[in-house]
């Protein structure tokens, strides 16, 4: 009883958190009371006031509007990058695990190469070489994370493929298409859902780190981690400058982590967490 309730609570909390962050971010153009980039040096570094419910930053920009706008880019990018690397990695893993032999060998070597590279370093290097910007960021994220998906999916596929019931179905005459689409994929789906949540969280974190270093989302697009970076000169006298965006990132990550945990517990799947950091 006890065990049943916890994941539900978790799931609900995650849903509420992520849902509200998503809705608020997506509706930012309508919800934000000010233009997030409009400066007004007369009201700089103000605390909360009726005009600016969360105060203003060093250039007099409305913090609430910036917080509302600040998640859009990274959330969309993280979701996009995770989806893309999941599809790529998933396909590669499925092919490798299912067909085995030379296909497996090639794909495994390839994914080993990408796994063997320290992801964050490579990401920094790619973003640094190609310059900041959404496209390069996407490239860096996908390049460094598809292999993780591929590895997990491959292991799972290998396991599922060797399940006795797969052999049973094969002896019943089921072809590979039926086996993959009808039986393997639905089996994988649960694991992928969990993996998606965790990886999306990691993606958000990577984007935030890169943006913080000035290698990610470039100005003037408002972004939470860039806001933290920019606040470094003023946060001592105006702590809300780092608390608001920091809290936003924190809540987003918390939501994704809770979602991952809840799904994991609910779907009772083990992903190859040991391989991951």
């Amino acid at each position, binding site marked *: 009883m006890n065990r049943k309730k916890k994941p539900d609570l978790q799931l609900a909390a995650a849903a509420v958190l992520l849902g509200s962050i998503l809705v608020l971010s997506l509706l930012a153009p309508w919800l934000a009371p000010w233009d997030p980039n409009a400066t007004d040096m007369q009201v700089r570094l103000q605390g909360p006031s009726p005009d600016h419910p969360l105060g203003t930053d060093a250039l007099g920009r409305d913090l609430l509007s910036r917080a509302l706008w600040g998640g859009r880019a990274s959330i969309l990018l993280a979701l996009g990058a995770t989806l893309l690397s999941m599809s790529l990695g998933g396909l590669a893993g499925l092919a490798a695990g299912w067909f085995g032999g030379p296909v497996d060998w090639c794909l495994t070597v390839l994914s080993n190469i990408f796994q063997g*590279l320290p992801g964050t370093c490579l990401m920094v*290097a790619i973003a640094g*070489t190609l310059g900041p910007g959404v496209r390069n960021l996407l490239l860096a994220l996908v390049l460094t994370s598809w292999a993780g998906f591929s590895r997990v999916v491959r292991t799972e596929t290998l396991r599922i493929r060797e399940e006795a019931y797969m052999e049973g179905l094969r002896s019943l005459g089921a072809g590979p298409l039926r086996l993959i689409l009808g039986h393997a994929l639905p089996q994988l789906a649960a694991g992928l859902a969990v993996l998606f949540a965790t990886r999306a969280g990691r993606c958000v974190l990577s984007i935030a780190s890169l943006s913080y270093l000035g290698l990610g989302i470039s100005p003037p697009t408002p972004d939470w981690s860039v806001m933290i970076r920019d606040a470094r000169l003023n946060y*001592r006298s105006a702590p809300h400058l*780092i608390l608001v965006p920091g809290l936003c990132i924190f809540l987003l990550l918390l939501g994704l982590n809770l979602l991952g945990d809840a799904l994991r517990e609910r779907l009772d799947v083990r992903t190859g967490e040991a391989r991951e950091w």
Partner: protein
Amino acid sequence: MTMGRYLLHKLLSLLPVLLGITLAAFTLGVLSPGDPAELALSQGGYEPTAEQVAELERQLGLDAPYPVQYLRWVGRALSGDLGTSYRSRRPVAEELLRRLPVTLELAAWSITLACALGLFLGCAAVIGRGRWPDLLIQALTGLQLSFPAFWLGLLLILLFAETLGWLPTSGTGGAGHMLLPAVTLSSATAATAARLLRSTLLGELGKPYCTAAAARGITPARLVVRNALPNAAVPVAALLGNSLGGMLGGSVIVESIFALPGIGSYALEAIGGRDYPALQGYVLLTGLIYVGVTLLVDVVSMLLDPRVRLGGKHL
């Protein structure tokens, strides 16, 4: 004998990875905007002539097709020549090696911290499972996982260095200097390790040998630490080894926040200065370290398991 074969197998499987790392580093150089020869010559405000550029291109072998360039580059890298930094005009290898100890020290502290904290939290959660210690640890690790490192670093400096003055804010010079950066860098890893350890420990506790051990009338702590832990530690060791890649990368942020002159901040400076040879060297070096550590972890976790260590030898 099997162990020798296993090692050989491991080493062989590392070859493509090494190839990949060198390729990645080389490709970065190719992708980097601008003409390397011109960039190299024109730093410091000089305007090279076309002949000078062409001459340097010939010298650097930039007129050869890419595969040839790649082979030459690898050859040079093998002999320890990673090129010359555009900014400082020193050999990149020398600069990297000079800064490496700082990063390694940071990584070592972080891994140690992650290890200690992960072990402690994981075991404590399992020993007190279902009761408040477990819930508390779950909540704590959840928080740790959701805290971006740069935010954590800022808050830690603000609290422990600037306000309380307990610890130094930046730079090197002993354990005190490494504490805050290591905490920042290892927080998420420690939480992941604790959670992984908790779940593997629970998995081990469900196995018959643990029931059998419990039937010997030992305390729950002993059951967890002495019996389940040695078997549950293998995936955690793998995790920690792999997390080193993350730490090498994460050190970019941490080193820049805590003013540590390691290779992470070097990479950041290189990016700011469009110093592509330095960046190439950075990728190569971190890649090699990562591969080395992965191998080490593999071997160690193999040695942790007596079934592998002693082979199938029967009495």
